[in-house]
């Protein structure tokens, strides 16, 4: 099979490469992984003006051909044609930020010297103009010796010219003699040359404060900066609860209607119980959290796309340095409040291996949205709905306490890890702060859609499967007619839980909790539906629904048990997806095994302490 010509987009981080890639390929793109490394490969098809197809690949952003991270190594190996990850591209589109030529041209010079056919996309010319910078692309083209096309990727400007230039370039002249990266001029020489070319290409430059710098004077202010960050985080978590109320209601109503419909359509018995108690109740109990997860991700995606996230990292660096991490760890940790899986994947931007490992190991301690179902139901059942000090809701206060507990736990864990298993000199914090820009709503929507799919897949497979398996284990074998043993105790699951109960009894957990913990290994939120299933089978006459479940819990659990259960979920690593992604990101079972071990130990100790303390003070 003959491959279409391969064209690679290369450039510095923040050059607007991905936006250009999205604009050129539209929806026809594939996201995969480079073999053997955890670096995403984005590729897509593009039709040239004469109808020939080319494959376009968006290489990870890099500052030079001297790689500092796995991402940059892929970029270097692809453009130099090492053949490890990809066939050598037939042409390069080097993307440079028009407002930052001094810096971006240096990498462009290195890339041009490789001898492949090159087009330079002079991107974000509109922002450069806004900053008072007028450039002459013709001068740039003459100095660099390659075509230069001004583009504004996010407004789809210059794309036709770029495609026309590519049509001419691909399959045209034979590549010039290559200069290997080792034989290239040293960095300072290239840098000076880049500055000279940039100076020559600038026609006019009006000095003056840019509005981005004015924003920074607030966002990075020693006093207002942290206040702004705190306010943003407050609004974010408020919105997660406030905005999600209505959609959660719709989902609940929808599932209730579905359950009623199925109950009416099927005769009472085995199949109906499986579908309503097992499948619909299980998936429904989890799906109601989709709105909250999406709202949290909406904020994170917008903060990231606007350029604010790096400012937050700047403000957090000092605090993170105290526990041996850097401000860079803030971004993955914040994402982990939505879900640890994308959080752990976001640690790829941390260059330092030990820093990155520490961040991965503490990411599951951030209160992810999967814990919310557990927290909400237990708090609703056991914490009285009243206010303290006049206006602070006690339930909300307990929820906040659980979030804080996770953060404190993470800090203590980071300190301990940095002194033991991830010992070593602390890495630095050196980061380019991208320009502020309006988020592209299309890109944000695309990001949210991807998360929705991942979540639905999870709810549809892992969660549905574990719920159904649990339902089966709980339902069989049936106790003989007239037996005084409850159906649950008699079942397979009941017998397994009996063994586990001995282990968790000292920390105040009963048989029902032991039962729920097993399927909740797959995903924390399953604990809720699992407990629901246990009680539904134990008491088939009882009413269903969340409120009824709360009443049942109150009847069967003591307050210390409930508090210990909450504390358990602050620490316990009950999530198959997190363990799997940790294995992938650390290339082996060693670190996920360590993570699971230390978190379970912490969960056991902290839940135990909570229980004994609560009993001691007479709760």
């Amino acid at each position: 099979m003959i491959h279409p010509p391969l064209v690679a987009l290369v450039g510095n981080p923040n050059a607007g490469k991905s936006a250009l890639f999205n604009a050129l390929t539209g929806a026809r793109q594939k996201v995969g992984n480079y073999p053997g490394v955890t670096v995403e490969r984005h590729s897509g098809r593009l039709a040239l003006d004469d109808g020939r197809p080319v494959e376009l690949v968006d290489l990870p952003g890099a500052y030079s051909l001297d790689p500092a991270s796995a991402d940059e190594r892929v970029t270097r190996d692809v453009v130099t044609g090492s053949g490890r990850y990809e066939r050598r591209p037939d042409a390069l589109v080097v993307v440079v930020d028009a407002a930052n030529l001094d810096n971006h041209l240096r990498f462009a010079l290195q890339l041009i010297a490789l001898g492949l056919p090159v087009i330079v996309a002079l991107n974000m010319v509109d922002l450069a103009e806004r900053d008072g910078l007028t450039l002459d692309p013709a001068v740039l083209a003459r100095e660099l010796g390659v075509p230069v096309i001004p583009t504004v990727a996010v407004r789809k400007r210059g794309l036709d010219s770029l495609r026309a230039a590519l049509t001419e370039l691909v399959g045209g002249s034979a590549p010039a003699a290559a200069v290997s990266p080792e034989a290239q001029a040293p960095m300072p020489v290239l840098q000076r040359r880049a500055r000279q070319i940039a100076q020559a290409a600038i026609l006019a430059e009006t000095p003056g404060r840019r509005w981005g710098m004015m924003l920074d004077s607030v966002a990075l202010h020693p006093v207002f900066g942290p206040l702004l960050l705190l306010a943003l985080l407050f609004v974010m978590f408020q919105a997660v609860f406030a905005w999600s109320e209505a959609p959660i209601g719709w989902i609940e109503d929808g599932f209730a209607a579905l359950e009623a419909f199925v109950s009416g359509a099927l005769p009472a018995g085995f199949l109906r119980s499986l579908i309503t108690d097992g499948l619909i109740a299980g998936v429904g109990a989890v799906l109601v959290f989709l709105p909250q997860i999406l709202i949290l991700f909406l904020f994170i995606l917008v903060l990231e796309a606007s350029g604010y996230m790096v400012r937050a990292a700047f403000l957090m660096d000092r605090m993170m340095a105290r526990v041996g991490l850097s401000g860079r760890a803030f971004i993955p940790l914040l994402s982990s409040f939505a879900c640890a899986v994308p959080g752990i994947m976001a640690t790829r931007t941390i260059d330092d291996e030990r820093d990155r490992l520490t961040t991965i190991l503490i990411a599951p301690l951030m209160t992810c949205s999967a814990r919310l179902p557990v927290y909400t139901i237990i708090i609703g059942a056991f914490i009285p709905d009243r206010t303290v000090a006049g206006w602070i809701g006690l339930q909300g206060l307990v929820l906040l306490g659980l979030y804080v507990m996770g953060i404190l736990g993470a800090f203590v864990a980071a300190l301990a890890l940095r002194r033991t298993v991830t010992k070593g000199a602390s890495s630095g914090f050196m980061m380019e702060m991208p320009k502020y820009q309006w988020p592209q709503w299309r890109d944000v929507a695309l990001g949210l859609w991807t998360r929705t799919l991942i979540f639905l897949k999870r709810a549809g497979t892992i969660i549905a499967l574990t719920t159904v398996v649990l339902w089966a284990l709980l339902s069989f074998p049936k106790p003989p007619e007239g037996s005084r043993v409850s159906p649950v105790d008699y079942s397979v699951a009941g017998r397994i839980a009996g063994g586990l109960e001995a282990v968790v009894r000292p920390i105040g957990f009963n048989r029902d909790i032991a039962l729920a913990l097993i399927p909740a290994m797959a995903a924390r939120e399953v604990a809720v539906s699992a407990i629901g299933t246990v009680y539904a089978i134990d008491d088939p006459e009882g009413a269903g629904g969340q409120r009824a479940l709360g009443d049942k819990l109150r009847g069967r659990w003591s307050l210390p048990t409930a508090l210990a259960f909450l504390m358990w979920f602050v620490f316990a690593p009950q999530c198959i997806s997190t363990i799997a992604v940790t294995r992938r990101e650390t290339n082996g079972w060693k670190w996920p095994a360590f993570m699971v071990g230390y978190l379970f130990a912490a969960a056991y100790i902290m839940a135990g302490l909570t229980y004994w303390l609560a009993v001691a003070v007479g709760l």
Partner: protein
Amino acid sequence: MATMIDSLVTVPRNQRATVFAIEWERLAQPEARRLRELGFDEGVGVEVLHRARLGSGPIACRIGRMTVALRRTVAAAISVSAND
């Protein structure tokens, strides 16, 4: 006219300055390389925009048309002379 040589840690905020010297050997190798890649070099114009807080915390400075964040330990290796 005498030129004041200052470190990037102590130069006043919003004072336009020129990098006079960088003690590369004081920096860890990856740090030094990243610093170069972000455009730091002798003779380059630089301006401190923000300091997270007095005493510690990172520094944000403008180099070329970029804003770059770095820690004080790195900034201490960069000496600058103030432009007038």
